[in-house]
C-alpha cells in the first residue's frame, strides 16, 4: 500500500459517501478502513504503514472531524490497549463507536493512595461466577461524567507482590454503583472527577487481558498516553509561546530589559524543543523510533509553565477571567486568560506521569542507570506499609 493507493481509496470513498450526515459518514469511514490506516482490516484500518495516515487526514480535511479533546482518552489510550490485548469480540464491539465518538471513554487508574506508585492501587475486583464485583475509588478522571466506558485497573490478588496481582477491565460507566463527582481544580473549574465504585458488577467478558496481567496491559496504555501528550507538531512561534509573543509585539509599553532576556531564552528553548519534536517525527516515519520521545513531555511541561508564568508577569494583570465552578469538556488554553494558562499548566508536570517519574524512566530505560533499591518488590500487596 502506497500513497497513490491510499489516495485512490479516499476518492472512491468520497464519491460514495455524503459528508453532510456526520455520524453516518464517520461510521462509513471506519468501515472503509480509513479511520486509522495502520490498524488491521475490519477494525477501521488497512494494515497500512503509519505514515499514510497523514495522507488520509490531508485528503479528508474538509470532511467531518473527530472531537479529539473529548475523545482523547479513547483514541490515545483505550484503543491501542484494546487492539493489543482485546479479544476479537471486544475489538469488534468497542473500537468502532470509540473512533466515531458515539461512545466516550475515560481512564480509571489513579487512586487517592496510588499516584506515581500506580501499582500499589487498591480498588478490589472479586470474582463472582461469570461476573466481577468492584469496590474502590478512582481520581483525576477526566470526562468520567460523559463517558460510556472506562479503562479500569483493579487489585484481584492481594496476596502476591503488587505488580502481579492486578487485572484490567473495561468498566461500564452506566452500571449501578458507579458514582461520578466533579473535582474542582485550582483554575476554578472541574475537568476531573472522583469516581466511586461500590459493588459494581462487571461481566467477565469486559476483562482485558488475563487475570493477574493488569500491570502489563496498563503499561501499554501509559506508553501511549505519554506519546499522546508530547507528540503534536507545532510551527515556529506556535503553542504556548504564541500568546506571549502576541502580547509582546502588540504592547511595547509592557516590555522591560529583564523580561526581554528571559523571553529570548525561552524562545530559543521553545525552538530547539520544536526541532526535537520534528526530528522525532522524522525518525518515526523512517521506522527508526528513538528514545527522544520520552523527553518531549518533560520539555513541554517545563516550557508551558515558564511561558505562562512570564505571560502573567508581562501583562501586569492582577485580575482573573473566571473562577466559576463548572465542568469543562476539554482543556482550552487559548480561549482563556493568561492567569488560567498559568494555573492549568501547573498540571502539565503532574498529569500523565510526573516530571520526577519521567526523569526516573529516562535515566533507567534510556540512560541505563540502576534503579533505587526497592523494598516493595517481593512483599505481598496486603503487607505493604501504607
Amino acid at each position, binding site marked *: 500500500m502506497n500513497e497513490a493507493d491510499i489516495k485512490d481509496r479516499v476518492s472512491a470513498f468520497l464519491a460514495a459517501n455524503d459528508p453532510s450526515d456526520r455520524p453516518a459518514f464517520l461510521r462509513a469511514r471506519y468501515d472503509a478502513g480509513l479511520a486509522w490506516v495502520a490498524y488491521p482490516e475490519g477494525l477501521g484500518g488497512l494494515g497500512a504503514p503509519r505514515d499514510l495516515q497523514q495522507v488520509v487526514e490531508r485528503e479528508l480535511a474538509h470532511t467531518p472531524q473527530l472531537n479529539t479533546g473529548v475523545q482523547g482518552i479513547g483514541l490515545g489510550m483505550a484503543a491501542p490497549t484494546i487492539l493489543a490485548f482485546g479479544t476479537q469480540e471486544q475489538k469488534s464491539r468497542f473500537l468502532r463507536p470509540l473512533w466515531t465518538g458515539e461512545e466516550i471513554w475515560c481512564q480509571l487508574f489513579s487512586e487517592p493512595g496510588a499516584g506515581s506508585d500506580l501499582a500499589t492501587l487498591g480498588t478490589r475486583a472479586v470474582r463472582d461466577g461469570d461476573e466481577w464485583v468492584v469496590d474502590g475509588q478512582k481520581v483525576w478522571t477526566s470526562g468520567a461524567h460523559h463517558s460510556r466506558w472506562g479503562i479500569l485497573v483493579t487489585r484481584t490478588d492481594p496476596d502476591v507482590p503488587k505488580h502481579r496481582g492486578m487485572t484490567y477491565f473495561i468498566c461500564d460507566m452506566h452500571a449501578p454503583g458507579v458514582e461520578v463527582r466533579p473535582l474542582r481544580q485550582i483554575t476554578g473549574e472541574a475537568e476531573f472527577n472522583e469516581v466511586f465504585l461500590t459493588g459494581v458488577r462487571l461481566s467477565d467478558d469486559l476483562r482485558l487481558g488475563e487475570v493477574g496481567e493488569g500491570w502489563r496491559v496498563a503499561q501499554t496504555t501509559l506508553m501511549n498516553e505519554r506519546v499522546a501528550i508530547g507528540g503534536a507538531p507545532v510551527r515556529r*512561534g506556535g503553542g504556548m509561546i504564541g500568546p506571549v*509573543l502576541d502580547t*509582546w*509585539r502588540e504592547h*511595547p509599553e509592557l*516590555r*522591560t*530589559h529583564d523580561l*526581554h*532576556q528571559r*523571553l*529570548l*531564552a525561552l*524562545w*530559543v*528553548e521553545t*525552538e*530547539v*524543543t520544536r*526541532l*526535537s519534536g*520534528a*526530528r522525532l517525527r*522524522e*525518525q518515526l516515519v*523512517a521506522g*527508526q523510533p528513538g528514545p*527522544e520521545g520520552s*523527553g518531549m513531555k*518533560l*520539555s513541554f511541561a517545563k516550557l508551558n509553565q515558564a511561558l505562562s508564568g512570564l505571560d502573567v508577569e508581562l501583562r501586569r494583570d492582577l485580575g482573573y477571567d473566571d473562577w466559576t465552578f463548572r465542568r469543562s469538556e476539554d482543556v482550552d488554553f487559548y480561549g482563556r486568560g493568561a492567569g488560567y494558562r498559568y494555573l492549568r499548566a501547573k498540571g502539565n508536570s503532574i498529569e500523565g506521569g510526573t516530571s*520526577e517519574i*519521567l*526523569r*526516573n524512566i*529516562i*535515566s*533507567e530505560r*534510556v*540512560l*541505563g*542507570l*540502576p*534503579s*533505587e*533499591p526497592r523494598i516493595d518488590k517481593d512483599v505481598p500487596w496486603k503487607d505493604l506499609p501504607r
Partner: protein
Amino acid sequence: MTLLYGEVEEELRAAVRGLLADRCPPASVLKRVESDPYDPDLWKTLAGEIGVAGLLIPEQYGGAGATASEAGVVLEELGRGVAPVPFLTSAVLATRALVAAEAGELLAGLAEGRTTAALAVSFAASPYAPWRGSSVSVDGGTLSGGVSGVAGADVADVLVVPVGGELYEVEGASVEVVPSLDLTRPVANVTFTGASARLLGPCDLAEVLRHGAGLLASEQLGVAEWCLETTLAYVKERHQFARPVGSFQAIKHRLADLWLDVVRAKAAARAAVADADAVTVAVAQSWNAGVAVHAAEEALQLHGGIGMTWEHPVHLYLKRAKASEMAFGTPGDHREALASLADLPGPA
C-alpha cells in the same frame, strides 16, 4: 530538509571515529597539550586519506563538493575527541572565505591535504561584530596592524586576512601563540608590519563567521555527548554508600535533564547544517554553546575529586566548551541577534 543522518554521513562518522579511537584517545591528547598540542600526523591522515580537508571545497577546485551536513558529522566526532587538528579553522573557516574569493589555486592545495590555511580573524569575533580583535589596514600592497585570538594560525601554511570587504593572502606575518584557555585549540596574536599581501577577492566576513558558527554547534554537540556518556559510565561504576552513585535519584534526575538538553542540541545542530539561515544558526549557537559548557561542568562535578585532576581528560572538554562558548559570538550575542531576526524587539 532532514534532521536525520544519512548513510554517507554515518560512514564518514565511522571512519573519523575509528581513526580517532586508534590515534588520539583523550589520554594521548592530554600528553601532548603542554608541548605541541596540534597533531600533524593525525591531521595528515584525516585530511588526505579520509578526505575531510576537501569536504567543503567544490569539485571544480579538487574538493568533494559535500555539504555542511557532512562537515557537521566530522565536527561532532572531532568534538567528542577534543581532537587537536585544524579542521574548523582551515577546512571550514578559511575554506569558506577562499571559496567565496574563488581562490582556486590555494583551494587545490587545501583539498589535497598538502597545505593548511588559517583565516586571520579573532575566534571571539561574531557575525554581529566581525572585526572584534582586528586592527589591520592595507597600504599599497602591504598590511599593518594585528589580530588577536586567532585559532589555527600557528599550524597554517597559508594565512589569509580579511580587510574591509577583501581577502588577502599574506607572507611574513608574526604569529605568537599565547597561553590559551582551550589547551587543544590554542590561539595566537598575529601581527603584520608592512607584510606583503596579495589580493584574492571579495570577502563577506560576517557570512564566513555565520557559517563557522553554524558548524561549531555540531562540535559543541560532540563535546556534550562525550561528557554525558563518560559521566554515565562513571556513575554506573563508582560506588559510595554500597551503591553505584548513579542509582541515586539526585544524580539520575540531573543526568536525565542533561540528556534532554543534549537531545535538543542534536536537533539544533542538524537544523543549523540542513538549513543554515541566520535564525537556525543563532538558535543552534545560543543553545548548544551553553549545553556543551553545562555538560562539561556536570561531568566534572559528577566525577567528584578525580574530575578536578589534571590526569583526567574532563578538563580538556571543559576548556574546549568554555572557550567555544565565546567563539563566533556568545549565546547572549546570538539571543540579542534573535531579537530582530525573530521579531522580538526589546524595550524602547
